[in-house]
């Protein structure tokens, strides 16, 4: 009954399909403006939501990407989003902008790599691969850095939580998707990303009750993250 209310206030009325979508050149400008303004990747869906009705942000993105090829800033894909980033070869100019990256422990780096290459992966599986228990602090740190997050629960006894990497992880390491992780194909071909059950009891891998250590991990905050 109040359809006129649906129209975004302040827009010059492009919300109606009565109006033609802006020209592709104009759409490219819009995508350029939105991506420049944002430090975070912006998804195609979000672009579409912000641009006038009938726009085709995917096509505008393709044009824009071409336009910025070889320039000082580039259009990069990050997961399901797009972002502008400076060209890596110009990093030397940016020492002023450089952020002191926290020195990660070996345990944290390895845990991160295991999550990235094996995701979704449970804590027990990480421990099985490293042959040592994963401290809560390591996981907490990676979550705090927004490089990993909780994934779906594994549908096995104990329903352990899994971990996956985030868009921020992809962004930080300049990856379009987790499929672009260096050496991923080779590792998979070599069978090194398999989770092979150990024959008989192996020490340090909790083989008798593989999901058991998750029991503790499950209680508390992880409950919050069920999808």
């Amino acid at each position, binding site marked *: 009954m109040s359809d006129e*209310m649906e129209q975004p*206030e302040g827009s010059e009325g492009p919300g109606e399909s009565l109006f033609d979508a802006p020209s592709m050149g104009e759409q490219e400008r819009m995508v350029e403006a939105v991506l*420049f*303004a*944002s*430090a*975070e990747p912006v998804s195609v869906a979000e672009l579409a939501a912000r641009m006038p009705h009938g726009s085709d942000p995917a096509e505008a993105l393709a044009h824009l990407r071409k336009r910025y090829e070889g320039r000082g800033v580039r259009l990069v894909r990050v997961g399901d989003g797009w*972002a*502008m*980033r*400076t*060209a*890596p070869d110009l*990093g030397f100019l*940016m020492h002023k*902008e*450089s*952020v002191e*990256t926290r020195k990660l422990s*070996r*345990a944290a*780096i*390895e845990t*991160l*790599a*295991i999550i*990235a*290459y094996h995701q979704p992966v449970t804590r027990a599986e990480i421990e099985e*691969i*490293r*042959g*040592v228990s994963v401290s809560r602090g390591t996981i907490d740190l990676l979550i705090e850095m927004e490089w990993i997050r909780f994934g779906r629960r594994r549908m096995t006894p104990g329903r352990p939580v899994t971990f996956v990497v985030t868009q921020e992880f992809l*962004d*930080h*390491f*300049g*990856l379009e998707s987790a499929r672009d*992780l*260096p*050496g991923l194909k080779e*590792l998979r071909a*070599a*069978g*090194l990303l398999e989770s*092979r059950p*150990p*024959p*008989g*009891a*192996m*020490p*340090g891998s909790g083989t008798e009750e593989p999901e058991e250590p998750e029991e503790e991990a499950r209680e508390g905050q992880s409950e919050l993250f069920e999808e």
Partner: protein
Amino acid sequence: MAEDDFQSDALSVSERLAAEALIVDVDGFEGPLDLLLTLSRTQKVDLRRISVLQLAEQYLAFIEKARHLRIELAADYLVMAAWLAFLKSRLLLPPEPGDEGPSGEEMAAHLAFQLERLAAMRDAAARLMARDRKGRDFFARGAPETVTRKREIRYQATLLDLMQAYARIRTKDEFRPFVMDREAIMTMEQALERMRALIGYAGEWTDLTSYLPEGWQSDPARRRSAMAANFAASLELAKAGLIEIEQQETFAPIRIRKARQ
């Protein structure tokens, strides 16, 4: 100590130093698998071709040495040692008929797989960390423009809601429970409204009680409520700079007058 020296006679000096370095560094290892991986490097072969038997022996020798040096090893190192000793016996002795569980070869293969997988993950981690990284090699927009989030909250209410609400209020009186009786309640807003109108005439110090309206002075409940409301209202007015308040001593009458100026 003599025993240690005797033991290490068999080893060359460099080997001994290497072994000791390993032991001194035991805290630096991320568990027994990590130690095994480090030991395996001395074999200088592809991890796929590693001699698990030799590795098991190296590990057991290491544990033995650590014991002689009275270095406390975490339990999982000892558990691994026990398992490797078992593996070693399986690999060396022909399987007995009726033996259950996996063969020595299966166990060895799995250990080799674990080591290879761990090494692969180490390598992957190193490659990952060596990538161009945001905030070091490439950068996001330094001055992002804040997207003004206009969150429009649209409240919903239908005519029916409105009518029901009104009906609810009007029928409330019919069943008004005793506790809800507001007859004896004066709100601060009422008092304030009233006092605002009256304050223009309060040039001299006047007892606050004289401001209580007609009908609110005798009944104790009403008087109490009116007094509280008027007192609160007078504080509001004083805050607004419209009146002054004074009280000569504790429990003395509270008096107000219009602010000078």
